[in-house]
């Protein structure tokens, strides 16, 4: 190292230090200023024309993102002071992401949930109670009353139904007609349905039906047909015996070859629409939601049909397919409520959104919209749901906290039986023991 360099190094070093000190002083100032900016916005939120940026978060497909963008643009056209910061992602991992945002105190102003997560978020006050807006900013008068109830947790109105759906048994119509087989019908018993499926397997070599042992919504309908329910308050509305009976019913179906093998059933035990066995060609029927018809149709060339789940269809109910929620921590609750009101009650918005999140919740607009629909898959799902509407039973309560644990444990228990690793009785008893303490 040459000594002649040192004086220069010393000078520049001092200059550098001074620079760092300046930055160190300036940084907090910048943050401080930013914080002040935030306070300003909050203070003047009463001014109706004040620019507001609303963060929006939901899950779905590319298609849904386009539809939602169109609807929100329509709102923006009428309310130029409101802009949206939209984030969306696939269903897989959505709840995890929302929980992360909640943990960091950064819940989006307006976000979507479904009945699997609603109670978890509502009981921890992540969602705002919208009762105070009902009747003024939020018009729910055209909603079926059961749909409003299905967004209420512990007396708080925490979710506004973005659409309505119900359970739908979707079958591969092309496969059945080319093999001269009868189509399943609404109201056939579970036993008759399983026999029919076994017959389909024999004739087409494609297993007649997905095994829905692990499917909470199928189990739920079946329970209601036995005069029980999934939940009774914060407790199970059934016993281990009921689960064992349900598992045994499907064990019988597998013995008759009415269903695929356990590994294929495992493939179908995901929420991903494009992996449902009826569209991957690995089974002739799948247990899904009726409004998923158009989305299912995209993954197959075959014609699809849809009926109610087997058994008495009055066990089914008008379910809020998903909800719009407002963050309890939001500074712009009133604006967010206004946007929700627009999305569910404005004709342009409802027409843009279609049946993607379920049939429109507003009954007047649903009827209007139904007349204009041309997509055959969408038409069919609307028609089936309208046919069922007269038979619908009373809606159950929103599933309590711990429901997501129940769902994943049901899959585990059912697969344990399907892979022959546990008897229906053992799996049922374990399931209850694990989930019971988590409810509440």
């Amino acid at each position, binding site marked *: 190292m040459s000594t002649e360099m040192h004086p220069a190094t010393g*000078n520049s070093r001092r200059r550098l230090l001074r620079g760092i000190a300046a930055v160190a002083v300036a940084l907090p100032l910048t943050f401080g200023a930013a914080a002040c900016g935030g306070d300003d916005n909050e203070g003047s939120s009463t001014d109706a024309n004040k620019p507001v940026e609303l963060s929006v978060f939901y899950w779905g497909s590319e298609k849904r993102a386009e539809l939602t963008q169109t609807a929100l643009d329509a709102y923006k056209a009428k309310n130029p002071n409101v802009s949206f910061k939209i984030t969306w992602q696939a269903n897989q991992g959505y709840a995890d992401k929302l929980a992360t945002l909640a943990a960091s105190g950064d819940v989006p102003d307006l976000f979507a949930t479904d009945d699997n997560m609603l109670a*978890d*978020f509502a009981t921890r006050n992540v969602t705002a109670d919208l009762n105070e807006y009902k009747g003024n900013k939020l018009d729910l008068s055209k909603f079926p009353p059961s749909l409003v109830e299905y967004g209420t947790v512990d007396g708080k109105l925490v979710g506004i139904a973005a659409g309505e759906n119900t359970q739908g048994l979707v079958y591969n119509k092309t496969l059945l007609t080319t093999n001269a087989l009868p189509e399943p019908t609404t109201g056939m018993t579970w036993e008759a349905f399983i026999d029919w499926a076994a017959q389909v397997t024999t004739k087409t070599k494609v297993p007649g039906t997905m095994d829905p042992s692990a499917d909470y919504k199928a189990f739920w309908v079946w329970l209601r047909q036995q005069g029980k329910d999934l939940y009774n308050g914060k407790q199970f509305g059934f016993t281990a015996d009921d689960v064992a009976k349900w598992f045994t019913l499907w064990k019988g179906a597998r013995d008759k070859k009415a269903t695929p093998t356990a590994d294929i059933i495992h493939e179908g035990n995901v929420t*991903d629409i494009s992996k449902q066995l009826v569209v991957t060609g690995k089974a002739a029927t799948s247990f899904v939601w009726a409004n998923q018809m158009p989305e299912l149709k995209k993954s197959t060339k075959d014609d699809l049909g849809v009926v109610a789940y087997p058994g008495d269809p009055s066990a089914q109910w008008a379910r809020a397919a998903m909800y719009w929620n407002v963050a309890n921590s939001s500074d712009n609750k009133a604006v967010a409520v206004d946007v929700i009101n627009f999305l569910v009650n404005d004709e342009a918005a409802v027409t843009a959104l279609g049946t993607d999140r379920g049939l429109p919740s507003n009954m007047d607009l649903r009827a209007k919209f139904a007349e204009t629909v041309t997509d055959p898959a969408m038409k069919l799902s609307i028609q089936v749901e309208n046919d069922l509407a007269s038979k619908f039973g009373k809606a159950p309560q929103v599933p309590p906290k711990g429901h997501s644990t129940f769902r994943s444990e049901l899959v585990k228990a059912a*697969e344990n039986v399907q892979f022959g690793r546990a008897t229906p009785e053992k799996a049922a008893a374990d399931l209850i023991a694990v989930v019971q303490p988590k409810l509440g």
Partner: protein
Amino acid sequence: MALTTANSPSVRASQGTGASAKRRRPRRGPQREGLAGYIFLSPWLIGLMGITAIPMLLSLYLSFTNYDVLSPLGEAEWVGLANYKRMFTSDPSYWRSVTVTVSFALIAVPLKLAAALGVALLLNKAWRGVGLFRGLFYLPSLIGGSVALAIVWVNMFNREGAFNGFLAIFGIEGKPWVNDPSWALETLMVLAIWQFGAPMVIFLAGLKQVPTELYEAASVDGAGRFRQFMSVTLPMLSPVIFFNLVLETINGFQGFTAAFVLSDGTGGPVDSTLMYTLNLYLKGWREYEMGYASAMAWVFLLAIGIITAVFFSTGRFWVHYSDGDDR
């Protein structure tokens, strides 16, 4: 020498700025040096504190609470050792995930190291094109923890996958590997073993360090290839083996990505791929039991620490460091 170099700049600098600075120099010089040192260290220090140390301490605190992610941190209640007690006494999924993780590490790590060493021995020759092969064998490690690779794996090892197609050529009927609880974890092991490139490169570097005169002396003494490998290569390579063993064991225990993707984030089928870290994630983010998940993380950290300590304490019986030691 180091001392003079460190001091000279400030000496020169103060000489340049005149008498007043000169008077204060003995007191303030070293202080300012220290300050500058910390400022230059600050990116790393801030990272360590903000991203590692403080969150870790926070998670230690959380492990004694019932924090549920969704409620504000302030509402978390102190529950003492309840989380730790539950782990060891009343959570079957916990022990399931311990079993899965330990069997994964016990089988995959030794096989991966054996594969790495074997291929390194083959590639430690002056063949034509050996560089190309080194690159090719290293490639899987480059794309190692990626989600894309795990997705490819799922599609190769399901019922209609490429692997079963290959088996069909020989008239063997394959299994639905990734969707069968008896084989899903084994499929993950194969994936881990296949990515032996990183330890292989380290082995290669180690092999180059073995002095050729040792082999010459051994062959003069009449030692065959196997004897040379056992008595020269392995002892000389033992520090590198030790290094790889410790590193790969820790990696093996922490496996998450592949298990997460392969099981669609569930640890299924039937908990067969429920790795410890995956279970921890599910507890924290799916069941909103972050307090419990934090406790799991701390037990995990301790367990890995103990395993590493055991490696280090047994090391002196089988790891030979040649420098300054004429054994």
